[in-house]
């Protein structure tokens, strides 16, 4: 499986996701779309990584998604091959501030990458969640591009540089 070598994380500005957008505040609440299937422990894992390693606060788990203002809607679905995870901003508060993101994981295609299903599912989840708070791609951490077939914990964690950006913005 591929290991890309993008520019060093130290060069990353913030926000650095494609729309240069940040979340609307430091409290990131979340829900699972009614169509979520597979491993229900994935969203709590990713939200926990964000809450435990950065200054962001994991807000309410709303259960099944109904309110379009909830910061993160988690879902599982087939995505067009070879995409295994997708984050889209569903609505903006204003330019540069995303009100609500949809994070979709293609679990069967993630599992097909290799033998590390548990780790890879979480890697992609942490990666997409990182985009929802403003992170772009970098190397050697959860924001690696493309995805990296590895059980190494570092691919399920944000880099120190990215954490510093998050803390400076939301802390």
């Amino acid at each position, binding site marked *: 499986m591929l290991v890309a070598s993008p520019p060093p994380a130290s060069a990353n500005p913030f926000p650095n996701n494609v729309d240069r957008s940040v979340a609307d505040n430091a409290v990131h609440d979340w829900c699972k779309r009614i169509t979520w299937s597979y491993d229900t422990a994935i969203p709590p894992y990713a939200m926990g990584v964000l809450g435990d390693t950065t200054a962001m606060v994991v807000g309410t788990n709303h259960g099944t998604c109904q309110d379009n203002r909830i910061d993160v809607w988690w879902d599982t679905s*087939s995505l*067009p091959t070879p*995409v295994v995870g997708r984050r889209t901003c569903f609505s903006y508060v204003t330019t540069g501030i995303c009100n609500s993101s949809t994070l979709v994981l293609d679990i069967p295609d993630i599992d097909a990458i290799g033998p590390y299903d548990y780790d890879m599912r979480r890697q992609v989840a942490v990666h997409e969640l990182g*985009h929802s708070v403003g992170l772009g791609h970098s190397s050697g951490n959860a924001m690696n591009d493309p995805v990296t077939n590895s059980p190494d914990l570092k691919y399920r964690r944000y880099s120190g540089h990215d954490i510093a950006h998050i803390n400076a913005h939301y802390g």
Partner: protein
Amino acid sequence: MRPFPVKSLSATLALALAVSACGHEQDEAESAEEFAQQLALGVDLSYIGMGSPRQMIAESDLVARGVLTDVFEGVEYEYEGPADDGRYTGIYLTFEVAVEEVLAGDESLVRDGKVYVMVDKANPTSPRDLAAANPRPEVLLVLLDHTQWLPDHASAVIRPERMPSDAPIFFARPDGLWLQTPSDQEMVSPFTTTEALDPTWGRPRTIDEMAEVVRACRQGDCP
């Protein structure tokens, strides 16, 4: 950081002079960079990289270069029941590309010299705005045929009116969608950077260079 292409001053000047000389008012000297950023606004993708040129050719349906002639609304999918909550409405648009060269794959998949490609977008992004911003760049596409593909909980594909009913619905690999205008010294992608390509590609910086790698691969020089 997403590396921005360095504009070639000499190329820009040459094109500006050429445009001025023939009296065209089109923005043919525009960079593809701003268009790519506008396209990708609000979309971040995780994907499996296409690997080496050999892997890419083996695992793709069509590899082509051409010109992005139009942008319009995308394929929609018909959802049922609670899955129809609007989250997955308006998340694709369509690239209409006039094919100039098939680099690899099945040429019969090209319809009347064109291919139609579904491209991810965020719900609020307007295809009409993107069409207006289209600098008609040269494109290099690594395509997969998704005509029969359905997302979970969807029961039918709804094609945009402007997509011929018999044309394959292609999806471009995120690392196989490259744009470049004459004023760009380097190609750009909405979803990734050239640094993310497998090293066996030899770090192509332009569509010409990437196309040459594919041609060489078909002739046996294939990493």
